[in-house]
């Protein structure tokens, strides 16, 4: 269970403090998915970063299965991100020096478990995202959609409880966006993860079980 309670986030701006999130509450159970829409600059990505243990909130708490990641400290926080959260960035952030397979396996380098089973899982995921034949390729040799699919596989390789996607189709054409969305939902169903997708694409947002709108720093269910 993801429990976000009273989360606020302020940034210091040139003309004083800027409130991006104000008293945000959010709950999500395993197997549930949520899309968050809102105009640019509404704080969607910030919320995702706060939820994904990348950016501590100014106020409020984030708990995943009762654990507050921000209370864990440096090493615990890193381990939490590695094991509990899978992130898909708009810019995918693949490592250019690594192959497709290696990019998927990068999080496993600091995970717990057996390398061979991670490798099997990575291969399965890449099969599932349709890149089973592109294993030795480098990111520079992939299309935008393919890169995003690699990023999705990477987000899922450690079997996280929570998958967070920040504009996963932001740089993709319509057809490719649909394919990526299909993939995300399919994998979500199979893995029974909690899935939060931030997007300003309403068509994409509607494909998720629940949709909220972030405005004035607060979440408004649609």
């Amino acid at each position, binding site marked *: 269970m993801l429990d976000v309670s009273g989360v606020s986030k302020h940034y210091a701006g040139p003309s004083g403090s800027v409130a991006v999130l104000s008293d945000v509450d959010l709950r999500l159970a395993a197997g549930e998915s949520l899309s968050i829409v809102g105009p640019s600059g509404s704080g969607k990505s910030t919320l995702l970063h706060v939820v994904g243990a990348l950016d501590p909130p100014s106020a409020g708490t984030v708990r995943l299965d009762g654990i507050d990641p921000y209370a864990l400290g440096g090493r615990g926080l*890193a381990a939490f991100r590695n*094991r509990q959260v899978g992130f898909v960035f708009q810019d995918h952030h693949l490592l250019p020096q690594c192959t497709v397979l290696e990019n998927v396996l990068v*999080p496993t380098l600091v*995970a717990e478990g057996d*390398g061979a089973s991670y490798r099997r899982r990575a291969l399965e995921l890449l099969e599932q995202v349709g890149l089973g034949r592109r294993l030795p390729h480098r990111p520079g*040799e992939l299309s935008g959609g393919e890169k995003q699919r690699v990023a999705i596989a990477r987000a899922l390789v450690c079997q996280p409880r929570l998958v967070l996607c920040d504009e996963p189709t932001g740089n993709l054409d319509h057809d490719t966006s649909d394919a990526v969305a299909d993939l995300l939902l399919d994998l979500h169903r199979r893995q029974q993860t909690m899935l939060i997708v931030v997007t300003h694409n309403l068509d994409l947002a509607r494909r998720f079980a629940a949709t909220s709108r972030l405005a004035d720093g607060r979440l408004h269910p649609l």
Partner: protein
Amino acid sequence: MTRLVLRNLRHYWRTNLAVVAGVAVAVAVLAGALLVGTSVRASLRALLAARLGSTDTVVASDGYFREDLAAALAADGVPGSPIIHLRGVLAHARESRRTREVQVYGVDERFWRFHGLTRAGPEGRSAFVGADLAAALDVRPGDDLLLRVETADWVPRESLYGRRDEAARSIRLTCDAILPPQDLGGFALRPAQGRVLTVFVPLARLQRDLGQPARVNTVLLGPAGRAAGAGWIRDALARSIELSDIGVSVRTLPSGRAAMVESDRILIGDPIARAALEAAAGAGLAASGVFSYLANAIRANGREIPYSVIAAADLGQGALAGVTPVDTGVRLVPPAPDESIWLNEWAWRDLGVAPGDAVEVDYYLWQENGRLSTQTARFRLAGVVPIGGDVGPALAPEVPGVSEARDIRAWDPPFPMDVRRIRDADEDYWHRHRATPKAFVTLARGQALWRSRFGQLTSVRVAQPVSGAAAADAAVDAALGAFREALRKTLDPETSGFSITPVRARGLAGSEGATDFGEYFVYFSFFLVAGALLLSGLFFRLGVEQRVREIGVLLAVGFPPAVVRRLFVVEGVVLAGAGSLLGAAGAVGYGGLLIAGLRTWWVGAVGTTQLFLQVSGGDLAAGVAGGMAASLLAVFLSLRGLRHATVPAMLAGILESRSAGAARARAFAWSGAAASAGAAGLLVGAAAGAVPGVAAFFGSGALLLASMLALIAAWLRRTRTDAFAGPGWPSLARFAAGSLAYRPGRSLLCIALIALAAFVIVSVEAFRKDAGQADHSPASGTGGFPLLAEAALPVLADPNSEAGRDALGLDAAELPGLARVRFVPFRERPGEDASCLNLYAPQEPRILGAAPAFVREARFSFTTSLARSAEERRNPWLLLEPALPGGAIAAIADATTIQYVLHRSVGDELIVRGDDGTDVRIRLVGALRDSVLQGVLIVGEASFLRAFPGREGFGFFLLEVPVADAPSLVRPLEEHLADWGVAIEQTSDRLAAYHRVENTYLSTFQSLGTLGLALGTLGLAAVVLRNVLERRKELALLRAVGFGARTIRFVIVAETAILTLAGVACGSAGALVAIVPAVLDRGGSPPLAAAGAMVAAVLAAGCLAALVAALAVRRMPLLATLRSE
């Protein structure tokens, strides 16, 4: 376009600054190294000028000549100064300190005037002492000094008539002043950068004490005017010289119809004899050579005549045509010429011998070991000659201590004599006929019996020919006068003991240096230069890589590739130009630092602190040109790397397509394989003896290094099929290694930078020589001789014989260890030190003559020789004995002397000046391995005496003593042999001194190699930081997916460590192969400690840089970095 270039330069200023810094360092190091060479040469020239004063040319003689000759030579406005120049030993009269190799100058006010100084004196018994000598002996004004110099006898001491007991004499002096270098306290006629021990004594005092009034042995001449040609001094000398200047006299006999050409040396050298015969023929006079000798006994029929003059001359011929035998009434077939002896009437009657009877003659013969032996020759009486007329005392030379004696018993001869054998009849003969020869043999037989290296005649008799009408007295007088003048003109001063040495020109040639320090420092700085250029290239490449998308955009918007290339080339030229200008300024600082280093830390390599920096525009320009060229090459190579990339790939930030990468990987793999094969081939060649060992191993080591770098380049570009997976350090390390492959060129440059420096440091370390305990086996560098001795004055006695030790004052009772000392003497032709201790290139190296006994001992080891037979290979010293075709003389020298000082190889020849002024060709036939004999050329004794017959006695000794006794014998032996200025040194110390110089060079090389390594490490650090900055988004992503700070730190450090270790491993492995011969040669172990220390240092520095980079990463805000572009 210009504005675009300017904008680019400004926008990427950080990267550009690094490029400029790299070029600046390279230019500074290159030009700085060249400045060192120029500075050392300029310093040597300045030192030479300070030491020579106004001296340009030196006219010297091995005898003494009229000091007026100086005035004759100094005509035509060329300044000149007559002096006496000797080697001597100076002792502090009260203290027990003494020093050898003192340059003694007998001078008067003309000397100071010649040098433009207003000083006068010294006068009376005062002396001026040079500052170095004063410091060595702790002499102060007013101190009493005892100077010992060689006496000025003309008569060769290594001949029957030479006085060996008076070889040197002492002169008591008082120090009047200490002369600093600027007042000619360091006056020296032979270039050397070390200290110079000089003492100036009054010319008149020296002339009086040496018995040479108004005579000198040296004239200093100032620079001749432009009009004067090279032969001007030679012509002036020939014009001005008198016969007395070369110790020759023409004595008209009382008859007035004949004259004797004689020499103050008693023996007439061959050139003078030839000149006399030639001049006589020119003057229409008959001439006969006469070789008079001493017969210890003339024996026949059981009777003997003691101590008689016997003459070898062809009676009845030439100027002795008037000598006709007495009719003895006996007719018989005359004995063969070689068997014939003619007695004078007195001796014939005294011996009661008849023609045809056997006559024996005992005589002394000089042995080259310093002893006189008694020999006997057998003859048959061929005839009897009358006393009187041509048979008179004039046929015998004037022998000091003999000729002027009233009685035979009053003789003071230089040879042993038993006066008890002298009879009254002999004294009666002496009173009536003085030295009139009692017996005659043919000239050829006499010369065969008594041959000496100093000459084969004691006189040349010239006379009016017997045939034809007797000329009037006046005509004979005129003919003899003409003969005198013709002889004077015919004699070549330079074959008669004079030498003309253009000391300034030769010193200037020598100051070009035995060692080109510029060249050496370019070598030494090579890795520093290479490192700086690699770094510069690396940064330029980083800049290009950083801007690969920009290049893609430019190409995409229609820029022709050539224009894009030009854009970057222009930027490169601007950066290289700026770097070069900065580097030129830096070169002055770097050169100054190196010169300061040579004056202080590395003074062991140069032996002088009088070096200064000389800034030369040419050197700076050469450094700038070299640095610019190399930088532009780096620019070119960086841009060349882009030709493999397509525009879309560049837009995607990719420099090299997969196929291009694979092709290059293949090319690198093949290159690596080829280099490996080449390395193996060289080793096989070395094993088969086809390639010299050192060259083969060094070549194969370098090829191995190249091969490893090529294989790493191929590996970095390989298509990876395996992938890391799962947690753990091995996976993380593989992840780190994979990151290195992303920019393979960058990684390879880092590895190469470190590998090259490691190669130098490890390989140089192997050549370091032990400066401590020396080996004393016969094949070692000491030859098994724990001590060596050098004498300032020639030692004429044999220090191994009882008589010789007596003569030398070596008393076994006072020197308990003496019985266990064996002296191995070497003859010496003084010359310039050709060891690594002398910076000047020797023009006339010191030459030693090795006795046959030493040659047969097969001491020392050889690196190479011209040995052919098995016996010669076993003992290459034997190569010194046979005469070489074409008249060259075989010589052996230390390998260091041959290679680094003389810049020759075994088999090469060099020319030195023989005693008769002619060129002597010296052929190098063997090179000694790391020996105590460095700095000299060693020739066989027979060859030595042929080329340098005037060099008497021994100047150098190797001493065989029990090793344990050696240290305790040094001081007592020196004290006992102090009169000869003998300095004893432990061979281990001498060898250590040579090794210190070589090790200092190696330290210099290593210091600069280490600096190169530091630069490499700095570059590595810069690359690591650069990589981290470039990959900050990647590292942020790693943090986002759960990498902790420690893990990221590990990844960064692992990448650095892999680069460092790969570099060190490649460099060390190549170096270890390269040094195999050096390690085997020295029997030591490879320099693992040094290599280990270096690995640790580089690794530590690299890891530190990585940690700094990791800390920088930690400070980067994660989200901002993820979002950043």
